[in-house]
């Protein structure tokens, strides 16, 4: 029996909310990156599910792009977190507060 497409929307919304919760509550920069990955993968679930629903490949192909871009983003992010550690000797994002928000 095929799974109803709405359930995928609920699943992806749940993953998205977990990601947002992680971003709001964690101050560790690496946990932040992981939460962002959750957000992007929530979008991927939607794209693949509706690609199947509509019977075209557009969404699935875009998922591949999203994954590649997520990897690129993490690569740049890790670099920035590395220089953050060298300058502040911590990867706590709330410690880097020499300028006020």
């Amino acid at each position, binding site marked *: 029996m095929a799974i109803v497409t709405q359930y995928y*929307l609920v699943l*992806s919304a749940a993953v*998205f909310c977990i*990601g947002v919760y992680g*971003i709001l509550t964690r101050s560790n*920069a690496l946990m*932040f*990156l992981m939460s*962002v990955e959750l*957000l*992007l993968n*929530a*979008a*991927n679930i*939607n*794209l693949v*599910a*509706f690609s199947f*629903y*509509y019977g*075209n490949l*557009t*969404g699935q*192909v*875009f998922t591949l*792009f*999203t994954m590649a*871009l997520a990897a*690129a*983003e993490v690569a*740049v*992010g890790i*670099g*920035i*977190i590395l*220089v*953050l550690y*060298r*300058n*502040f000797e911590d990867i706590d*994002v709330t410690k*880097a*507060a*020499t*300028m006020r*928000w």
Partner: protein
Amino acid sequence: MVIDIAGASVPDWVALAPTVALGLGAMLLFVVDMVEPEPGTSSNATLAGISTLGALVAFLVAGSFLVIGVGQPDGTGAVSLFNDQLVVDGMSLFFVVIVGSVTALVSLASYDYLAGQRYQAEYYALVLLAATGMSLMASANGLATAFVCLELSSLPSYALVAFLKDNKGSVEAGLKYFLVGALSSAVLVYGISLVYAASGHLQFDAIAESLGAEPEFVGVLGIGVVMVLLGFAFKTASVPFHFWAPEAYEGAPAPVSAFISSASKAAGFVLAFRVFLTAFPEIGGLAGGDPAVDWIVAVQVLAVVTMTVGNFAAATQEKVKRMLAYSSVGHAGYALIGLAALNAPQQDFVLGASMMHLLVYGFMNTGAFLFVALTEHWDVGRTFQDFNGLSEQAPLACAAMTVFLFSLAGLPIGGGFVSKLYLLGATVQAGTWLLGAALVVNSALSLYYYSRVVRAMWFEEPDASLEVDSYPTSLYAAVVIAAVATVVLLPAFGLLSPSAIDAASVLF
């Protein structure tokens, strides 16, 4: 496919020549840096020269394409490439002109700013790669392409903001820019996935066609459209994703602040214009009838809040660079009028006014940040008081800065006056009095904090220790060119605005 440019038949990808020039420039920088015998010994002049030249070529080619009619209705018509994933029309060329000119000014100014720094080749290459992404954003014609181009311009920008690796401010700015950027691009992708869920397509025209005026899944689509709007708010530094801007602009090297606040903002706007006008026109009620997803109201709220937040926050700042950062947020609010006042009868005039404002803003804001780069070069400090009496030592640069600030405020000394007048006219046409009132009140407020800098530079007594010992040629040249362009745009505004309005009219 073959198109006809100035009497010669050429392959259709030639229409992308400005973008290709930027990309090739970046590759050339990598090659030059690679073949140097010792790592990091490439001459700063060569690198800055290649970078400036690449941007200048993009600027000139895009400008001449506009003149000879590439992508315009009376010339070749809009050129669609790669199965309609990219489109070259008047709108995209107009914004490539903005991105190209800002990139050229920034590369030129970076020559002095970067003297003695390491990793110069990487710096210029990242600038050109980001500019390539921005010019592609102007051509993107599908949500997939749009997202890839947006990331191509964002990722190098993160690295550029954190370029001064041993400077705590720069690293902190880079971190904050990256964190907000990663979050907002995730929101954008989720929005795209919801729009795809509601329409089954990613290409703009196909989305509009499949949605029609009464789409099936309005709830999902509505959330998707709002999330896409929020994703663009990050790129344009609008509320609610504006709070990275003051941090990133203050901590970043000043030429990078100029680059991100002018070129990146313009690129974000052109993408927003194209997405909302070609993918979501009918559901927004632009074709008449009740809107299914009333995004115009959402943009109106964002515009008013953005300009008010930006200007009021700018008025309370103590540091000049941070004040400019908040003023940049305020100007994002002005430019949003191009989308917010679209219920006016003459839609092309509304959009054209916003495009012209971004063009003028490109010069005056870049110039203002490059003046800050000049003061950082002199080490005069960052607060308003540190600028006291600067005009005695550097009258030319201070005169240029005065032009930028008054033009940003909307006084008739530069193009900023006419562009704000056009925006005001747009709000009057649309009958959105709140928008027009917000524009006028905020411009009046902005005069207060801009003139604080002018007063400090010209009327206050200088601090005894203030000494300007060098006059860096390329920084000066960039500031003066930007000032001349700002002033010239006042009389030349009427010459250029028809091309902006023509470019805008194609989208309706």
